[in-house]
């Protein structure tokens, strides 16, 4: 392992934890949007209570990934920021409205109508943002980031991301985040009825994850040839897909037979496997075709102290972040 590869792994790891925690927070917002039936209010309250204490800490994983990217792979970061200016800006607006509306809703006491308005803003932003995040990742994975796009025509700033593969990956991300949230909420629900509500939601979104995975794989043939090639022709490809598929299926079976804690573990493993697949398929690129991990990395004099800070971070953050979850999620 070279220092550059270690930092790339740390970025990958932050994104995995972000998806498992912050991603599920967005998923919670999705289920707030789709809350209905006699228990709609209880569903919303369960989601709000689940998010409240942790969402800001979860969000830091995303910032961390960003910061590590611009320190260790500065030119890749600059190129991504230029080519994907539009979807990143839209995603930021989503992040702003999701977070702000979430606290505004909980603090708005004067009018029920305003409260409902903030709730709506929170849930809509929670639904749109993961799609944009997936589009951004999809655009990077599709190999369309060039180091200096010409500033005209404007199409140069749209074509990298407004394509079938990135958009499909956007919906895949949405389904995955919603699935994780629904599975977590089956464990966190305190009544049988609520648990059943989220069991149904988890099953539906779990099937959607599988469907969109296939759509992405098929579209990737033309849309992200490099990733697609790695995911289909390497020696690890077939066993890897089998493993991911089996874990996904087991998660759905556990949901079906109401083994919710086991389903939660399996859903997490499934998500991690998906990320491993992405990581392996994208290797050795930070952003294909121009930026490889080794060639676009900052000099060693930057990476070595950075790795020390990352180590310090693991020592400091792992126990405290775990403590936060222990306090609020142990029941």
């Amino acid at each position, binding site marked *: 392992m070279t220092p550059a590869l270690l930092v790339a792994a740390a970025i990958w790891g932050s994104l995995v934890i972000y998806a498992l925690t912050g991603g599920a927070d967005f998923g919670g917002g999705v289920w707030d949007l789709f809350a209905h039936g006699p228990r709609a209010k209880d569903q919303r309250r369960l989601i709000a209570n689940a998010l409240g204490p942790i969402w800001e800490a979860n*969000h830091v994983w995303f910032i961390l990934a960003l*910061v590590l990217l611009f320190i260790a792979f500065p030119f890749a970061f600059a190129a991504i920021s230029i080519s994907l200016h539009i979807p990143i800006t839209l995603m930021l607006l989503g992040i*702003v409205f999701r977070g702000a509306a979430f*606290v505004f809703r909980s*603090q708005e006491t004067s009018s029920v109508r305003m409260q409902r308005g903030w709730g709506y803003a929170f849930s809509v932003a929670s639904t749109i943002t993961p799609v944009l995040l997936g589009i951004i990742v999809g655009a990077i994975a599709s190999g369309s980031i060039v180091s200096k796009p010409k500033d005209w025509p404007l199409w140069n700033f749209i074509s990298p991301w407004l394509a079938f593969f990135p958009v499909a990956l956007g919906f895949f991300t949405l389904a995955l985040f919603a699935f994780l949230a629904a599975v977590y909420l089956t464990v966190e629900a305190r009544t049988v009825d609520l648990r059943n509500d989220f069991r149904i939601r988890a099953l539906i979104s779990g099937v959607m994850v599988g469907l969109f995975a296939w759509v992405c794989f098929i579209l990737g043939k033309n849309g992200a040839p490099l990733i697609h090639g790695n995911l289909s022709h390497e020696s690890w490809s077939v066993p890897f897909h089998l493993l991911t598929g089996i874990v996904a299926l087991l998660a759905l079976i556990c949901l079906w037979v109401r083994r919710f804690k086991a389903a939660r573990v399996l859903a997490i493993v499934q998500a991690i496997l998906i990320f491993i697949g992405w990581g392996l398929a994208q290797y050795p690129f930070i952003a294909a075709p121009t930026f490889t991990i080794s060639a676009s990395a900052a000099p060693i*004099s930057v990476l070595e102290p950075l790795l020390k800070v*990352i180590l310090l971070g693991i020592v400091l*953050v792992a126990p405290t*972040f775990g403590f*936060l979850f222990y306090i609020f999620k142990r029941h």
Partner: protein
Amino acid sequence: MSNLFAARSQMAVSLGFHIVFAAVGIAMPLLMVIAEGLWLKSEQEVYLRLAKQWAKGTAILFAVGAVSGTVLSFELGLLWPTFMAYAGPIIGMPFSLEGLAFFLEAIFLGIYMYGWKIVPPAIHWLAGILVLVGGTLSGIFVVTANAWMNTPAGFQWHNAVVSNIRPFAAMTNPAALTQSLHMTIAAFQAVGFGVAGIHAYVLLGDRRNAFHRKAFAISLSVGALMSVIQPVSGDFLAKQVARNQPVKLAAMEGQWETERGAPLRIGGFPDERVEKTRFALEIPKGLSFLAHWDPQAEIVGINAVPRANRPPIAIVHIAFQMMVAAGTGMMLIGLVGAWLYWKTRRLPDARWYLASVVVSAPLGLVAIEAGWTVTEVGRQPWIIYNIMRTADAVTPMPGLVIPFALFTLVYLFLAFTVIVLIRQQVYASSEDGYS
């Protein structure tokens, strides 16, 4: 509107918006920890209610700070990709440490805000202290990165190639300590006065309200103490600027000619066409003395650099005067409050004094905004002082006026909403404060 100007405007709006919430995120935990500590010590219920009420207001402001901070960290790349491509690795050290500090802050904020009934009181209080430490450290690290833009260090730059990067030397650049000290004190000072002003406003109508009296006492103490030490840190910072960014100092002071025994100008308007500062009150040799402790010291004037390398002088000078005026105002109000307390041994609650604190409530935020205007506009036309021009760092993305307009509207809307919500809370809290 040119693309460069749109990008600079968007950055200014984003920074100007975020810094308010960042200051609150740094300083409110101190007020909460003091109130909760007094509750733990005295077991007076009113302190606990105060800590909880402050925590409630802070939750809103903190969330807005977190998301607007996220916007800023992405905007570094969205608006200034060339800057980040070169500077990212050099100033990565404070940014990565800031990430850790932000973790600490966000994790313990969750425990603090939602753990009142879950963790024991002592642990809860400790969580508050860790929020304070995390918030203060992340502020210091971010300002350190900004300081590097003013006094770049820890690398070699030759024909647009960066080499020999020493992250630690970059982090300990000459402006790092003075700038982060000044900003940290400013955060506590601005929030102290802002909060004191709000509670003073309620006390004007209900002078015996115990809840608001305690709130006023704590926040004013913090604000007043900071307002007295802030001029000292400002002096350190100004001397550092005099050494490392003489043109910025000249712009701040409206000093056009290089001269010995330069006067200190109070107020005035620098006329960039005739290169003179008019209508200023001049204190002979004052600037030389303040900048170098020597009334005969030479002060570099704006004319020492060609026009293309000068910042907009009038903006920098006026912003600096505003900051100093606001700071002086707060210091006077703080000193009067201390004197009243020393004389009467009770909370200074005379109507005229409460009213003066109400009026001073926004001064700290005005000073912060003006101070950042000095820092940022005063560095122009450079994004990395004397190394890279802002115009060379901007993204090639066309039509930047659109995101600028978009973010401006969103931030105006959020600011309006936050004000409405905080108002609601203040009114709710004044109804049940036992008189």
